[in-house]
């Protein structure tokens, strides 16, 4: 039997009627039409479904939607400001860190969650913090450079937490 779940997604409050076994990633994609979050392995082993919940990067395939009741969720759709990309997204574009793009939403959100907490990371810290996001195309080098680049852009813009 369905139950009503309230959650805020990208700053917008939503009310959805869901069956209890459904996961956050399914509801984001299928009920709310936010297909930017991808399903890779469905087991928490690839990071493609990474979203930010109450400030923390998590695998949306492992969170039951009922556990997201009352929480604030940020998906990739929530980063750009209209037509203006978020500095992390722009850095990914500028640095050639996107090939097929499948890992990119999760990768960018992992980066955002970390930079919100540590605005000035070392390369090693960046590599450790994206270790939960697999990329089959890029070999990670340009992704790491993009995240470091983004950290500088964010600091210059004076936006430590956005």
């Amino acid at each position, binding site marked *: 039997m369905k139950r009503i779940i309230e959650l805020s997604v990208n700053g917008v409050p939503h009310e959805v009627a869901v069956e209890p076994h459904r996961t956050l*990633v399914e509801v984001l994609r299928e009920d709310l039409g936010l297909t930017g979050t991808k399903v890779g392995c469905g087991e928490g082993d690839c990071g493609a479904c990474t979203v930010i919940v109450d400030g923390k990067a998590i695998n949306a*395939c492992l969170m*039951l939607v009922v556990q997201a009741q009352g929480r604030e969720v940020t998906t990739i759709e929530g980063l750009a400001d209209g037509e203006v990309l978020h500095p992390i997204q722009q850095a990914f574009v500028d640095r050639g860190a996107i090939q097929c793009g499948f890992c990119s939403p999760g990768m960018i959100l992992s980066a955002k969650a970390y930079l919100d907490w540590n605005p000035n990371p070392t390369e090693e810290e960046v590599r450790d*913090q994206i270790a939960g996001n697999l990329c089959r195309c890029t070999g990670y080098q340009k992704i790491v450079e993009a995240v470091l680049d983004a950290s500088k852009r964010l600091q210059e813009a004076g936006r430590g937490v956005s």
Partner: protein
Amino acid sequence: MTAVRFDVVQPETVEEAVRSLADHKGEAAVVAGGTDLLREIRAGTRSPRLLVSLDRVESLSGIREEPDGGLVFGPATTMAEIAASDLVRRKLPALLEGASWMGSPQVRNLATFGGNLCNARPCADTAPPSFVYDAVLVLRSAGGDRTVEAGAFMTGPGETVRAPDELLETIRFPALPAHTGSAYVNVTNRKALEITITSAAARVTLKSRKGPIREARICLGSVAPVPIRASTAEAELTGKAPDAEVLAMAAKAAVADSRPIDDLRGSARYRQWMVEVLVRRALEKAFARARGDGS
């Protein structure tokens, strides 16, 4: 992904949670972070009809220091919370080292300490530290509660003494004696998203800051059906001065205490080789910390 259906209840207190478990005995499973359970349900290896989610039971989260210096953990405390805890870093560094490694940053934001112990994998990274630190688990049911020593909690891969209607309520660590140092080291195929191939937790207490060993405890992970104490190695260390030769002898002795098998992540022979390397490294770090000159 939605092929498997189940119902979910979200109690707000421990009492409600244990009542749900009692009412649905055998058909209910506890879910905290869900990082193991949801995978098992999708793989078909577990099929509970009801999940009792702990996400609203606030009393099950958090790390508290007791007046005697011990630490008490709510089992729903996440790996990320342990990894970020200054209290744990200072008092139980081996536990922090185990929790900091497992999964990935995203998984650690969901995975819980209690889940790691209750899932009882031989590779569980919080288990060897819990064993050497003499952690005590409190299990609660509708009928009351009971305590179990960490070392007696796991009985086999995926098996514990916890009954289906029992909830792990707290994990308590006693204060450590002076001149005690500890560490956890492991070897894995990758830095993340992999499970431990072999691990060693070591805890040593010296008679004085520069003195000989009063007592040593070593627990090995992933080399037996449950994490096991390397008692031969421990006996080699008691009363001795902690020099390189003594550590090397103890590390060698620990190999005989291990009972690894061949599996897809490593052969038994490789794991035995790693036992010797990791026990020596864990002891070296533990001694440096006991003497106060390590980090």
